[in-house]
């Protein structure tokens, strides 16, 4: 057997065994990462194992969510010609994963795109003299969600990219977004935290920047949310288990009540025996969404912990003097606790108003509130709005964000056909900025991808060009004093 034939056999084996089993691909990457960081072999093996098992747990959760949802979606469609989608990154993850699999592409490609994006972000920072990028996106679980949704947008819009070229395309695209948009949050984050030296690397980076620009025009930063007393029971929504369970119970409870007992008995014969009463059926069905969500969450947590650790090791070695872009919740320590809840409440009101609007105007897509966007996006918007525009801004901006989340999420779930699997990413940048990107991909194909990447790369150039103090731009030290 000559060399080329051996290579082909090897490649085929790799493709059939590793790429179609993304858990081993990710596990292998973690193993190599740990070895490169000179960790002992037993620790590297443990990393491989935990990453692989974590990803398999994630698969169980995602499958459970989609399967529990299917009869309810079918029922809504059958009785009211209505489709539904939960706007939440984990429901979106499960839906996009399913769609990618149904299209015949492996999730292994998505993970490869994630790695390309991560290294592209690092390269952009290494070349910061030219690119003006100062931040590395390090939020592992968000990178997984965003890489998966971005993969689906590309695979959906440009089917000829369902291959290695597509992986590079997605990697460059998502890596540019991570670099450019986290770079936009440097100034607001540094002003909020008194130069704590981190930027936001999450799902609402565009809106953090927008909020810091709009808030001063909306309200007065002197009149802070701090002095507002919120009712004590709202505190319970800080507990993610309670918040998720409540949301699922309210939304799915109402949907099942509307579909009615006889109908549910008809479509779910196995899960709804004659001896079981309707209220208990509703309770158990609604809570099973929470159950699968937590299974999915714990799987993602397990393997992201390994991934983040090796990413950190790599960036600590490579990039001295750049800022890490981290989870939005890191900013919450710099605001009063009621700012976070205040944003959640105003955003939830915005979402509920918009959902009522969808129903009144007979939208073919119904939106179900998911915990992550309604809580974390709106809390983050409120934290920055309060800093730059006081309580008036902290009320109005999350309310508007809530409306955009629902309307944008409904349009996106419809346009990109993920309503078929009952979920959309649902965080605010993914309800506004990314759907616009997706429409460009769909209509312009590959040139659309190039246009989006180039336009994003222009943003930091404009930022640099407009900054008054060029040295300050790279030192990232911003004073808090109003001009």
């Amino acid at each position, binding site marked *: 057997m000559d060399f080329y034939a051996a290579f082909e056999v090897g490649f085929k084996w790799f493709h059939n065994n590793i790429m179609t089993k993304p858990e081993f691909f990710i596990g292998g990457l973690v193993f190599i990462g740990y070895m490169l960081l000179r960790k002992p072999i037993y620790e590297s093996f443990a990393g491989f194992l935990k990453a692989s098992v974590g990803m398999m747990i994630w698969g169980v959760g995602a499958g459970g969510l989609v399967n529990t949802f299917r009869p309810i979606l079918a029922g809504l469609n059958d009785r009211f010609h209505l489709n539904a989608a939960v706007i939440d990154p984990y429901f979106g993850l499960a839906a996009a994963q399913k769609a990618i699999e149904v299209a015949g592409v492996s999730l292994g490609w998505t993970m490869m795109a994630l790695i390309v994006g991560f290294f592209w972000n690092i390269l952009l920072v290494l070349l910061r003299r030219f690119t003006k990028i100062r931040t590395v996106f390090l*939020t*592992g*679980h*968000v990178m997984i969600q965003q890489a998966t949704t971005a993969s689906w947008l590309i695979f959906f819009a440009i089917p000829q990219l369902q291959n290695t070229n597509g992986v590079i395309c997605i990697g460059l695209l998502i890596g540019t977004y991570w670099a450019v948009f986290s770079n936009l949050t440097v100034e607001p984050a540094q002003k909020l*935290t008194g130069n*704590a*030296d*981190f930027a936001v690397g*999450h799902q609402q980076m565009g809106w953090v920047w927008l909020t810091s620009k709009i808030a001063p025009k909306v309200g007065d930063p002197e009149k802070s949310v701090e002095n507002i007393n919120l009712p004590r029971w709202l*505190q319970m929504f*800080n*507990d*993610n*288990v*309670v918040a998720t369970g409540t949301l699922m119970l309210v939304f799915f409870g109402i949907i099942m009540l509307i579909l009615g007992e006889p109908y549910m008995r008809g479509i779910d014969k196995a899960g709804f025996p004659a001896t079981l009463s309707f209220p208990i059926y509703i309770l158990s069905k609604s809570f099973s969404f929470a159950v699968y969500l937590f299974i999915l*969450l714990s799987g*993602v*947590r397990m393997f*992201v*912990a390994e991934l*983040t*650790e090796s990413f*950190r090791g790599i960036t600590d070695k490579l990039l001295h003097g750049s800022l*890490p872009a*981290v*989870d*939005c*919740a*890191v900013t*919450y*320590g*710099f*605001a*009063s*606790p009621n700012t*976070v809840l205040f944003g959640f409440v105003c955003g939830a009101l915005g979402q509920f108003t918009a959902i009522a609007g969808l129903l009144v105007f007979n939208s073919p897509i119904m939106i179900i509130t998911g*915990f*992550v966007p309604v*809580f*974390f996006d709106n809390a983050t918007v409120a934290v920055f709005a309060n800093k730059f525009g006081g309580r008036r801004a902290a009320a109005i901006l999350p309310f508007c964000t809530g409306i955009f989340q629902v309307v944008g999420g409904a349009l996106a779930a419809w346009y990109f056909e993920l309503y078929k699997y009952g979920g959309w990413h649902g965080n605010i940048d993914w309800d506004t900025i990314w759907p616009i990107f997706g429409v460009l991909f769909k209509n312009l194909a590959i040139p659309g991808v190039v246009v989006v990447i180039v336009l994003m790369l222009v943003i930091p150039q404009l930022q640099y060009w407009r900054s008054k103090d060029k040295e300050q731009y790279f030192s990232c030290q911003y004073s808090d004093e109003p001009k």
Partner: protein
Amino acid sequence: MLKVVAACGNGMGSSQIIKMKIEKVFKKLNITASIDHMSVGEAKTAAANYDVVFCSISLINQFVVKNNRTKVIGLVNLLSEQEIEAKIVENDIK
């Protein structure tokens, strides 16, 4: 060995960051500890089985622990090793 848990809203991002930072500080102070990270909802029920709970200062009133074992420490800047170190010393954790 000290049992420590880092908690945040959903148990995904920030608690992982806290965990990595306290690991570093413990190493520096020569304290051996096993550190888990999880969401506030989970950590509330598990808190009594830990010696120390670390979380963002905005979540500190979520924890009501009625024993003399568990200490709850709220952090302003999750990324600041100085703050973590100061609070470990201040709370006399060994």
